[in-house]
């Protein structure tokens, strides 16, 4: 029941995408501005300069980070991310993925879409694909989180989304709960390419995922896509920075 005051004067405030607190409503807001003051303070946009491959903030302009230096050149995948994977981002992702708050895909997807528009849309033709979940995991969660993001981005940018990859292995322990070495181990043979063999030489494909920690998942998927003659680039919502892995 609205009070007589708000019946006369209307509701001028809206709610934050991520925590439902009231926020001022401004015409033409970008999705990342539609946050309450609290979220605005906690979320952290990745600072420049960044590693020119994986997007990790670094102190030197136009350089490779230590991780990217360790990976061989043919395995490197260019990645862009919206926010740093800090405590706030972790809570958001947890609420979305593990507690099934499916609505959050929308702001995350829109946020990623406008980032992609800024950084990648100069490439003339590209496709969108995503890092898939195992079908058992989809059954557990009720939705495939990366697929949802990919479809929102695709609709926003008018770019087709294709299911090119499929997840083969299903493990009890989730990726996010392992160490670097364990992850690298576990990923071998985790995905396979299921798309048709097409003549796509040089076609860019955008790989969508939610969180970029070490980049191993993205690189593994990219390897398969490269084998099918695609040129993969990646976009993730959050990206870990060294102190918070």
């Amino acid at each position, binding site marked *: 029941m609205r009070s007589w005051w708000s019946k006369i004067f209307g509701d001028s405030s809206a709610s934050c995408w991520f925590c439902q607190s009231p926020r001022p409503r401004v*015409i033409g807001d970008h999705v990342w501005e539609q946050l309450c003051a609290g979220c605005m303070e906690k979320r952290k946009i990745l600072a420049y300069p960044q590693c020119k491959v994986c997007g990790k903030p670094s102190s030197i302009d136009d350089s490779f980070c230590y991780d990217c230096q360790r990976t061989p050149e043919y395995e490197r995948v260019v990645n862009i991310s919206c926010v740093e994977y800090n405590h706030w981002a972790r809570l958001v992702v947890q609420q979305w993925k593990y507690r099934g708050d499916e609505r959050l895909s929308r702001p995350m997807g829109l946020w990623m879409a406008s980032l992609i528009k800024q950084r990648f849309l100069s490439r003339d033709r590209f496709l969108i694909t995503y890092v898939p979940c195992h079908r058992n995991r989809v059954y557990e969660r009720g939705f495939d989180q990366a697929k949802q993001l990919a479809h929102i981005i695709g609709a926003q940018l008018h770019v087709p989304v294709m299911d090119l990859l499929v997840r083969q292995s299903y493990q009890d322990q989730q990726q996010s709960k392992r160490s670097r070495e364990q992850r690298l181990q576990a990923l071998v043979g985790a995905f396979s390419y299921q798309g048709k063999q097409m003549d796509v030489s040089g076609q860019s494909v955008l790989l969508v995922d939610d969180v970029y920690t070490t980049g191993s998942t993205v690189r593994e998927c990219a390897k398969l896509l490269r084998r099918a003659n695609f040129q993969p680039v990646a976009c993730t919502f959050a990206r870990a920075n060294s102190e918070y892995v």
Partner: protein
Amino acid sequence: MNRPLVKVVIGWLMGVLCVQLTGGQWLLYTCGFMVVLISGVTFINSEVRGSYLLVALTCMVSGFVYSYTMLQNVSELRIASDEDIHVTGTIESKPIRDGDQLRFDLQLAQIWHQSKWIHTKERIKVVIKIESMKQWEQSQQVRRGWVIQAPLHMERPSLPRNPGAFHYRDYLQQQSIFWIGKSTGLQSLKQIGTESSLMTWIDRVHQLFTDQMAHLYSDTEVQGFMKGLLLGDRYDVPMEWEEQYQTLGLVHILSISGFHVSLLVGALFLMLRYVGMTREKSAWLMLCFLPFYVLLTGAESPIVRAGLVSGMMCLAIAWRKEKDILSFLCLAALIQLCFEPFLIFNPGFQLSYVVTAALIVGTTPLANRFPYGYEWFRYTLAGACVAQAASFPLLVYYFHESSLFSLMANVLFAPFFSVVVLPIGYGSLLVSFLVLPIGIWLTQGLTWIIQFSQNGIEWVQQVSGHLFSFAHPNWIWLSVYILLMVGSWWTWVSVRYVHSKIPWLISSVWICWIGVGIWGTFWPASHHEITMIDVGQGDAFLIRTKLGKTILIDGGGRLPYPQKEWQKRRNPFDVGEDVVVPFLTYQGVNQIDLLVSTHGDADHLQGLGAVVKRFPIEKIIRNPLPTISKLEKEWTREVRGRDIPIHIAPIGQIWGIEPGVSITFLYPDFRDEALYGGTSNNAGLVLLFTIDQKHILFTGDIEQHAEEKILQAWNLPKIDIYKVAHHGSKTSSTEAFIHQMRPRYALISVGEKNLYGHPSPEVVGRLQKAGTQIYRTDQMGAVTVRINQEEVQFSSMLQEKGRE
């Protein structure tokens, strides 16, 4: 976004528009509304039906309200114009003493008419002419609330006599004032009582502050300026300053504007909070203070607006409710319109609300899109841009000019005044009641700052060519402008166009559209236009050709008569400044290609002084004789100072202006001995215009001698339009001259009830005998002639007397 009040205001505006378009025909739009309502109920889907019905219903209500109040808004006095009556009544407004005039509004109680007292409730305007210095001093005693008895000469407010001139009758009618009572001498005013009300008490407090300010500021100009700024006494601001601020688009900071009120309320609120009061208590305190402040500073519509909105803000704080300024603004508009429906036609009211609404909606999104800079700077810049863009169509519609520096001046000066001058001004005023020396010390610093900024403003002012005239815009130009403005704002602000070129595209189209407003359409007009401007007793003709060439022949004027210091008005009437320049601006003139000065008499030349100052001029043509009068010498010096070439009329030559338009210089011959030493009238320049094979003869003030000379030297063709020489004096337009020309039409530029008795009945008789149709400014106001190959059309401002 659910804002019912915004919908109500939109509906209200639509209702007013309907009444304006249909002229208040009840049946027509009652039927229209029924159709709208029924279709709304039946066809519209449920989601928007609520808003649709709300808008439609308010539209209907406001339509009925306006057509009803318009019908009711007529005078109840059954008196004739120019009648002398006795009245009693109460002074309703603060009396304003301006030079030798005392003006106030009078709420009538009864009038003595046809030898009986009649009760009435009408309001009239009273203008009393002060005759002596003693009366001038006494007039300061006249106060609001006096019950007076006076004999008054009743007149209807004047109608505009030139296209685009101020419509005084409509303006007063919108305040439900239909008569002006005039009287001479203060002794005719008899005080028979005093009614005290809240306002008389507030006037007393106002007087207290005014007196205190007289102690504080030693410089009279700065004192007047600060009175305007702090107490809303617009009439104390020096006229020169006001004009400078007006041309730079800064006039809103001169008198108390709504922004000042919000700023003051905000500052006081923060102060109370700092002292340690709760938010709620400080809000209640502010609510008590606001009405007092609004009344003290004159309660003009922008101040009332700001007072209402700030009041609602305080109420929201006190009751801990949500604050939505846009809805508050809409409610404030509705409250003001309920009390005075006709305010909606007032330019000040429109500007105030349109700009505020645009600022509320537009500033923050735009400021968020500026990539660099401090936040306060981004907000100032965005606010200035939004306010400029939103006020521009209204300024062009009502005032027809705009300065290129307006945006820059607003960004530079407006924050300076609100952050520096205003707080120190109020602070020093309040402190001075406690410790006078500190107040004086503060104001000395302030005086220095203001004079410094004034120098800056004057310097900017002197840069020529920053002021553009815009011809009166039609609705197509206006609506396209508004579409482009909103469109470019939206594309800049919206997420959709972040990295695209569309915002740039739309904004450049928008700026080009402003250019179209300045330079008019790109194709030639269908007619050449000659306007006989109504300058009273005097001559002024504007010729605009099809291709847009502008020729001005004389500029009217009157001899300045000596006045004592106390008699001088704040803004003395000047034909050039108040008639000719506004008319040229209204026509969208940005440059005068040829200025013709026939001779040096005041009624032809004096008005050109203001024209030379305002417009760039290509060249000036005058008669070949030396300058005699002091006025002409001064004027020539002014012209030389501006590097405008002055040519001597090449007698006997023909000048082509553009295809189809040429000027033949007929007279005077500088070898004619008789011209030297005689009156200047016979030395006047005589021009024959040939426009699309029509001959138009401009004769200045020539008399019999000159006419004879012209007849000797030239074989005149049949003249189509004859500018009657010397305002129709009987010493000119001789029988022989008229017989030779046989003019089809005659133009007489002459003042109403002039002292010379022009035009003389003899001349009118001579012209009528020759079968000439006469157009004269004293009866018809300005007369416009439109000429092309096929036709000659006449139209005049005061149509009802037009075709006799």
